[in-house]
C-alpha cells in the first residue's frame, strides 16, 4: 500500500462523518436534476453531466464511511482502486468506440452488468453477514433474483440486436410451461431460503434466476426488444434500491428507486408509442400464431427500378417524403440521403423526413442518427404530423425501413405487429423502396406494399443506391 492509501485507511472514521452524508444528499439531488434535465432537449446534455457528477461524488465519499460499514478501516483498498480503473477503462473505451447504430445494444450491455453487480453484492452480503432478519433476507433475495434476470436478459437482448442470434421471437416447444415452471421454482426456492438461509439454496436460486432471465427474453422479438431493454433497466434500478436496503445505504435506495420508477414509466410510454400494451410485448410470442401472411414471398412479382428511374421519379415530383429506417443507418447512408434531399430542395421540391417513433432500433434513435449527419431539425416530421400528407405526396422514398410502413399493422389482425401505428406510405402516389433484398424486416413479417403496382424497388446497399441516384439526379 502506498503511504497515502495507508493514511486514508487509517483515517476511516468510527462513525460516518456528517460531511459524507451531506455529500450523499448532494449526489441524490444531482440524480434528480439529471433525470429532469434529460427530459428536455435543451438541458439534456447538462442533465447527463449532472448525473455523472452525482455518481462521481457518491463514489468518492464511500471511502470515508464509518467503520460500522467496513468493520474497521477499509480493507483491500489497492485492489478496489485497480478494479475501478479497469472498469472505467473498459466502460470508456466501449462507449467511445461503439457505432451510433449499435448504441441500443450497448445500453443493454451496460444495464446487464449493472444488474449483475447488484446480484453479486447481495450474494456476498448473504455469505458474509448471515442475517436472519426476514426483511433483510427478502431484500437480499429480491436483488439476487431481479439482478440476475436483468443480467442474462440484457445479455440476450444484446445478442439479438447485435444479430449474434435471430432477432425473431424464439418459441421453444412447451416454452410457456418451462418458463412458468422455472418461475415457480425460483419463487419456491426464494421462500425456502428465507425460512432456511443456507448457501446451497442460494446457489440454486442464483442458477434458476439466470435461466429465468433467458427464458423471459427468448420469446420477445423484433421491434419489442428495445421495450424489454427499458423494462430490464427499470428492473436493475429496483434491484439496486433493494441492495441499498440490505447495505443500509440511503443513496442507493434513492438512486435505484428513481431509476426503477422513471424506467417503468418510460417503458410504458415506449410501449404506447408502438400501440401495444406491455403485456403483449412480453407475452405476445407465447400466444401469436405463426405469422399467417409470410407465404411464398419469392414467387410474387415485384417491380424493380434502376437508379436512373428513381432519379427521374424524384426529380419531377412536387412533394417527396423520405422514410428512413435502420437499413439507412446500417449502410451509413445518412450523409448521402442529406445530399439527395439538398439537391431536391434546390430544385424547388418539397421534401420532409417522416420519423416513426421507433424508427431505428429504439424510440428517438433515428433522430440521433440524422442529427449526427447534420440533417436540419425542421425537416424531421413526427408520425402524427406527416401521416395526413401522404395522399398529396408524389413519391414516398423508403430507405431501409419495413415494419414501420407495413399496412399489416393497420389491417391484418393476425399480424404480430397489429396495432402498431405506422407511416401510411401506401397512400402516396408512388412508393420507392431501397432494400438490400426481399428479406422481411426486423419483425419478420411480409409487407404487402412491396407488391403494390405503384411500388418500385431498387435493390442494393442503401449507400450505393443513393449515391447512384444522386449522380443521375445531377445530370437531369
Amino acid at each position, binding site marked *: 500500500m502506498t503511504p497515502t492509501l495507508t493514511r486514508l485507511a487509517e483515517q476511516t472514521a468510527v462513525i460516518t462523518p456528517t460531511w459524507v452524508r451531506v455529500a450523499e444528499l448532494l449526489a441524490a439531488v444531482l440524480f434528480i436534476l439529471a433525470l429532469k434535465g434529460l427530459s428536455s432537449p435543451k438541458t439534456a446534455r447538462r442533465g*447527463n453531466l449532472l448525473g455523472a457528477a452525482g455518481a462521481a461524488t457518491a463514489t468518492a465519499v464511500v471511502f470515508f464511511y464509518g467503520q460500522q460499514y*467496513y468493520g474497521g478501516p477499509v480493507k483491500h483498498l489497492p485492489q478496489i482502486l485497480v478494479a475501478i480503473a479497469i*472498469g472505467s477503462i473498459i466502460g470508456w473505451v466501449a462507449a467511445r468506440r461503439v457505432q451510433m447504430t449499435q448504441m441500443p445494444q450497448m445500453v443493454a450491455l*451496460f444495464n446487464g452488468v449493472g444488474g449483475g453487480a447488484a446480484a*453479486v453484492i447481495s450474494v456476498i452480503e448473504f455469505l*458474509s453477514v448471515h442475517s436472519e432478519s426476514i426483511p433483510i433476507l427478502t431484500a437480499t433475495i429480491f436483488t439476487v433474483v431481479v439482478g440476475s434476470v436483468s443480467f442474462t436478459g440484457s445479455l440476450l437482448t444484446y445478442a439479438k440486436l447485435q444479430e449474434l442470434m435471430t432477432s425473431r421471437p424464439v418459441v421453444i416447444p412447451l416454452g410457456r410451461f418451462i418458463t412458468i415452471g422455472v418461475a415457480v421454482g425460483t419463487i419456491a426456492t426464494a421462500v425456502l431460503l428465507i425460512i432456511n438461509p443456507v448457501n446451497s439454496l442460494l446457489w440454486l436460486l442464483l442458477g434458476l434466476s439466470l435461466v429465468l432471465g433467458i427464458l423471459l427474453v427468448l420469446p420477445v422479438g423484433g421491434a419489442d426488444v428495445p421495450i424489454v431493454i427499458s423494462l430490464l433497466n427499470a428492473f436493475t434500478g429496483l434491484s439496486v434500491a433493494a441492495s441499498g436496503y440490505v447495505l443500509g445505504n440511503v*443513496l442507493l435506495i434513492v438512486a435505484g428507486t428513481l431509476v426503477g420508477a422513471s424506467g417503468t414509466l418510460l417503458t410504458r410510454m415506449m410501449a404506447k408509442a408502438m400501440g401495444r400494451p406491455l403485456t403483449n410485448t412480453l407475452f405476445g410470442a407465447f400466444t401469436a400464431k405463426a405469422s399467417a401472411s409470410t407465404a411464398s414471398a419469392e414467387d410474387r412479382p415485384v417491380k424493380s427500378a434502376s437508379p436512373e428511374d428513381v432519379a427521374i421519379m424524384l426529380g419531377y415530383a412536387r412533394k417527396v417524403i423520405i422514410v428512413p429506417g435502420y437499413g439507412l443507418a446500417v449502410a451509413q447512408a445518412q450523409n448521402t440521403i442529406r445530399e439527395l434531399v439538398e439537391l431536391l430542395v434546390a430544385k424547388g421540391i418539397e421534401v420532409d423526413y417522416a420519423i416513426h417513433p421507433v424508427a431505428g432500433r429504439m424510440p428517438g434513435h433515428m433522430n440521433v442518427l440524422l442529427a449526427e449527419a447534420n440533417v436540419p431539425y425542421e425537416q424531421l416530421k413526427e408520425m402524427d404530423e406527416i401521416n395526413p400528407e401522404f395522399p398529396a405526396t408524389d413519391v414516398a422514398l423508403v430507405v431501409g425501413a419495413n415494419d414501420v410502413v407495413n399496412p399489416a399493422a393497420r389491417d391484418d389482425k393476425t399480424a404480430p405487429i397489429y396495432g402498431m401505428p405506422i407511416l401510411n406510405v401506401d397512400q402516396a402516389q408512388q412508393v420507392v423502396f431501397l432494400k438490400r433484398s426481399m428479406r422481411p424486416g426486423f419483425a419478420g413479417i411480409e409487407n404487402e406494399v412491396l407488391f403494390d403496382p405503384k411500388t418500385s424497388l431498387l435493390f442494393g446497399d442503401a449507400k450505393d443506391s443513393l449515391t447512384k441516384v444522386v449522380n443521375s439526379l445531377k445530370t437531369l
Partner: protein
Amino acid sequence: MDAIALLTIFILSIFVGIEVVSKVSAILHTPLMSGANAIHGVVLVGAILVTGKATDNVQLYLGLVAIVLATINMVGGFVVTDRMLEMFKPKKAEKEEVAK
C-alpha cells in the same frame, strides 16, 4: 435508520422518479433511458462497501468482479449518453421548439 424512515424515502422516491420524466418528448426516450441506466451504476458504492469489508478470498474476488461490472455500467453509461446528446446541439434544439 429505522424501517419506516427507509420506507418513506423509498415511496417518496417513486413519486419523484415518475414526476421528473412525465413530460419527456419522444425524441429523448433513448438518451433518457441511457442516462437512467448510467445512474443505477451508482451500485458501485455498494460494491465498494462489500469489498472493503471482505474477510475471505471468495468475498474479495466476487466483490472485485462487482466493482468492475458496476464501474463499466456507470462510466460507459454516462459516456455513451453524452455521445448521443452531443448531437442535440442547443441551437438546433431551440429551432425545434420554435417549429413546434
